[in-house]
């Protein structure tokens, strides 16, 4: 187990380094840089000669490979550099942007889980076929509505027409409702559909009939057997959804004028603010890798039938046939 965790952590670090490098290569081929943007803005009052001085000041005149290693070394010493547009240390920008995004992601996740879960359970246990069909039709609809459209209409109706919530984030709880709902609705379809499938499948499995035949109440059966069995694919999906949550924040934070990682990413990408983009890519990748690592490690805890071997990669080839039998 220890060896497995060590291998996974090492692998995660390698993935992060690669992600950072990929991002650096992408950005170094960009046609412009923030200094040109600043010089060429109307009113800037700066000349090309000033640009040379500024580039020197920010170290942008050095060979690209040197810049890469300087930045990489900076990361290890915790120095992420300065935003070339705002002059703020990137570390403090990220530190300030992370909490609202995490807050939004968690709120969105809760909405998504509750909504997705409720839809799945309701559809699975609906007594009338027509109701069932109606409930089944909701997730595909949610999946087809662009997040930004949902956000725009939400603001228009709830903030402006009904004046129930603030349109611009003011740090209040009410301000979080719109973004969280929009984000939650966006991620709920896959959560609902996967849970629904597992529920239906598990319900049909023999052991449930056995448990019921033994006289267990259906409520007991639901919580102790059906849900427990359905939760595994859900957990996996959660790890993947995490990426969607962060990506969704780019659009949602723009629509709702919320501060956060997504918004500084959008701004930094448009202004080619390299240090900021690199830090964001690194951070989001790190979060994503960490969340999925934790989920991987949680599998055996939730389902003891899954054993983790010391050499996970080599195991795969033959393993595929045998364990399937273990499930049902």
């Amino acid at each position, binding site marked *: 187990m220890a060896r497995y965790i060590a291998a996974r952590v090492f692998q995660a670090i*390698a*993935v*992060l380094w690669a992600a950072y490098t*990929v991002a650096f290569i*992408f950005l170094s*081929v*960009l046609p412009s840089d923030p200094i040109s943007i600043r010089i060429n803005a109307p009113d800037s009052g700066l000349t090309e000669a000033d640009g040379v001085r500024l580039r020197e000041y920010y170290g942008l005149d050095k060979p690209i490979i040197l810049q890469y290693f300087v930045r990489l070394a900076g990361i290890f010493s915790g120095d992420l550099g300065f935003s070339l547009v705002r002059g703020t240390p990137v570390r403090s920008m990220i530190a300030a942007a992370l909490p609202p995004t995490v807050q939004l992601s968690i709120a969105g996740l809760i909405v998504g889980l509750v909504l997705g879960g409720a839809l799945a359970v309701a559809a699975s246990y609906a007594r009338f076929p027509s109701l069932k*069909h109606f409930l*089944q039709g909701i997730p*595909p*609809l949610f*999946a*087809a*509505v*662009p997040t930004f*459209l949902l956000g*725009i209409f939400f603001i*228009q109706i709830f903030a402006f027409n009904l004046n129930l919530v603030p349109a611009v984030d003011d740090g209040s709880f009410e301000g979080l409702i719109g973004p969280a709902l929009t984000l939650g609705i966006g991620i709920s379809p*896959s959560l609902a*559909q*996967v849970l629904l*499938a*597992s529920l*239906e*499948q598990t319900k049909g499995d023999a052991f449930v009939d056995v448990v019921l035949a033994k006289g267990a109440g259906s409520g007991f059966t639901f919580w102790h057997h059906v849900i427990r069995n359905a939760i*595994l*694919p859900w957990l*996996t*999906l959660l790890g*993947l959804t995490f*990426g969607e949550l*962060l*990506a*969704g924040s*780019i*659009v949602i934070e*723009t629509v709702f004028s919320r501060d956060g990682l997504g918004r500084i*990413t*959008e701004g930094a*990408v*448009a202004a080619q603010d390299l240090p900021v983009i690199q830090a*964001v*890519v690194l951070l*989001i*990748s790190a979060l*994503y890798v960490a969340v*999925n690592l934790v989920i*991987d490690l949680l599998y055996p805890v939730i*389902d003891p039938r*899954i054993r983790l*071997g010391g050499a*996970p*990669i080599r*195991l*795969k*080839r033959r393993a*595929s046939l045998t*364990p*399937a039998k273990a*499930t049902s």
Partner: protein
Amino acid sequence: MTSENFQLNTAAVDGRTIFGREAALRALPRWSRRLSVATAIRVVPAIAVLAIVLLWAILPSLFTAVDPNLAVPAQKLEAPSAAHLFGTDYLGRDLLSRVIHGTRESLTGAVIAVAVGLVLGSFIGLVAGSARGITDSLLMRLVDVLLSIPAFLLAVTVVVVLGFSTTNAAIAVGLSSVATFARLIRSEVLRVSASQYVEAAVSGGVGYWSILGRHILPNSLNSALALVALQLGMAILWIASLSFLGFGAQPPNPEWGLLVSEGRDFLGSGFWMTLFPGLAIVLVVISFNTIGHVIREKSAQ
């Protein structure tokens, strides 16, 4: 024992990042296959929508005689009426004509995105799944790297590098879905290779590439097809999102995402500019998703 369940556990025991999105999608509702009438109710409208939209894309002038880019300043921001069923936009252009003529660019974008993802992803997945060993490990690490950058962030970065246009947005979205396709194809290759008839073929002395061509590829086709349909829907959404952020289509081309993005400035004075292109996106995405799900259900039967 169902194939989905099989897949889940395979992935779990692999001990890797396990159970990709494709597997999650594979586990979508299958029970509805018992309700074939219900299936028909879902499929027929979806096919009808896609058929109309396809005609719009191929022969837009059959449906509207109005030039989508002709600005008639005197008629700007007119509400939907008999003369302009969808109303007019801020320059007095006919919105119905713009939605119809925008179909081609939106659909082409989605097709390019999926083609990029499918071709590159299948290649990586096939090689990884077939070669195994160190090649597999290396390729799958590459896929892990791609997956560790949230796809939309990747797409935004790529589109800035390539420049703003629908095609570039489509390529960006396609590149960010390479990992998904690679994983699906690889797992399909592994699944099919492990199946009894392939094992039989191997023990019968049939060459590997021949097996790949005769057994593995055809058997993976349905899953790939289902994913293609779903990804088409997703690509439309993502390209629209990129357009919304201003990273997509170029004016005056009436791409749907661009239409919504332009329309949002006029929510107070012309809601129809957002509503109709928005509806077009929603309907087409739902249709693609429905068809993707149905293919998956049929193939699971």
